[in-house]
């Protein structure tokens, strides 16, 4: 039928007008036109989708979703509403924030309508913080501010509304009131008047040129001199300080660069000195280690040589030489396991038999009248192993040789170290204890 086409055309016209308004950010006007378009043709899907977008832009998410769902139901294929709904569903956080904000706005509205303005303002500020495009919340907040005569704050809220929805009728009315209250309206009106007014020039506005006076030669000279003086003064006052500053700055920069270089060189020297110290220390440690190794080696060689000589002397029957070499050894310096075991076997021989053989030789020498040799042999025997009998004999020998101090020392040692032996008793009687 013809009326079908006519109605479709009317709906399309309203949609086009609505689209134009929306492009100019007149969202309220666009919404009204789109609603009219849908009234003529509910299948005008573009109009319904655009209406949903406008609701979404104004913070009315639920209204937007309603329009898109209806749009999707009316035409399920090739419908951009499907994409919008998917986008919303893909980011559930957005939906949650919107739901929370709607709840908070509704709560704030209840507070505002029951004269709890403080709570309402607090809630609305939170809502606006999360949803800066929530037009209704902005307008309600501005109304509350206006009620409290906080015109500047109200103006700020309304300004935000008008940035979102340029021709929002409520916001425009409220903004007009705010401008009147703050005196801004008069300022704007006067600005407009000045911008578009064309007044006639009066007689006072006529510019009368000054007469050209003739200047005398002296005055010319005076002017030139004045000009020179003024130039010099200007140069000294304005240009010279700037030049000096620039020169100083350049010198300072140069000085800084030299200082940096010097600092770098100092740091390099310091690093090199540190490296030298480290290397010197490493060298000293290495030299010490080498010395220690050499000493240890020499010590090892000396100990090995001594033990070998002891063995050779003992094997050849020269037990005196073997004993002399043995007593000259310092066993605490032997660290090598092989040498230590060799030393232990020599020690065992020395302490089990050699010391007695030495004592026997000493007794023989004493009996032969060679007291000096006897003393040395007894001393070797006692050094190898402290036997109270040999110690007593050595002490007696010292006595007979007139070495009373040495003899007394030995007697005292027998008394102290072997108090229960028969030689201790004898020593005590000699010492007169």
């Amino acid at each position: 039928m013809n009326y079908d086409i006519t109605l479709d055309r009317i709906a399309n016209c309203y949609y086009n007008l609505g689209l134009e308004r929306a492009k100019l950010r007149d969202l309220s006007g666009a919404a009204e036109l789109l609603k009219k378009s849908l009234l003529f043709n509910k299948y005008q899907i573009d109009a319904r989708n655009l209406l949903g977008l406008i609701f979404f832009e104004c913070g009315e998410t639920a209204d937007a979703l309603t329009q898109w769902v209806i749009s999707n139901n009316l035409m399920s294929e090739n419908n951009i509403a499907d994409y919008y709904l998917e986008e919303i569903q893909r980011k559930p956080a957005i939906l949650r924030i919107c739901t929370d904000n709607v709840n908070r706005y509704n709560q704030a509205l209840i507070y505002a309508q029951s004269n709890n303005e403080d709570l309402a303002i607090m809630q609305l500020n939170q809502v606006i913080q999360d949803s800066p495009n929530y037009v209704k919340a902005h307008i309600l907040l501005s109304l509350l501010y206006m009620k409290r005569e906080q015109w500047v704050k109200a103006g700020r809220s309304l300004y935000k509304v008008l940035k979102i929805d340029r021709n929002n009728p409520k916001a425009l009315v409220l903004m007009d009131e705010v401008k009147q209250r703050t005196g801004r309206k008069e300022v704007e009106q006067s600005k407009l008047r000045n911008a578009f007014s064309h007044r006639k020039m009066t007689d006072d506005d006529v510019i009368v040129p000054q007469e050209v006076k003739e200047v005398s030669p002296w005055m010319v000279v005076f002017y030139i001199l004045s000009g020179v003086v003024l130039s010099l003064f200007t140069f000294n006052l304005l240009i010279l300080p700037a030049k000096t500053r620039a020169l100083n700055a350049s010198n300072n920069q140069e000085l800084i660069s030299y200082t940096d270089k010097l600092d770098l060189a100092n740091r390099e020297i310091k690093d090199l000195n540190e490296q030298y110290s480290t290397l010197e220390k490493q060298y000293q440690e290495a030299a010490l280690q080498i010395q220690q190794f050499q000493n240890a080696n020499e010590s090892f060689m000396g100990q090995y040589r001594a033990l070998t000589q002891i063995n050779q002397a003992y094997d050849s029957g020269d037990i005196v030489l073997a004993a002399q070499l043995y007593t000259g050894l310092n066993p605490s310096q032997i660290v090598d396991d092989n040498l230590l075991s060799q030393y232990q076997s020599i020690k065992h021989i020395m302490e089990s038999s050699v010391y007695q053989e030495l004592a026997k030789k000493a007794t023989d020498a004493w009996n032969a009248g060679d007291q000096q040799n006897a003393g040395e042999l007894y001393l070797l025997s006692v050094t190898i192993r402290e036997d109270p009998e040999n110690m007593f004999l050595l002490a007696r020998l010292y006595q007979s040789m007139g070495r009373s101090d040495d003899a007394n020392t030995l007697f005292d040692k027998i008394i102290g170290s072997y108090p229960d032996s028969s030689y201790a008793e004898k020593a005590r009687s000699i010492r007169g204890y």
Partner: protein
Amino acid sequence: MINYEEEIKRFKPSLDVDQIEDAIVKTDLTDMHEIMTKLIEDAIELKKDNDK
């Protein structure tokens, strides 16, 4: 002069996301096509009745 109390009372709560289903059901989707069709149908019916 704006009456702020009255203006505030005129505000209506926003639609909650949970209420979308109800809102869709309650939305009146009648357009001019349907109104015109209904009017024409009524007119035809009336004409038939008159003819009888």
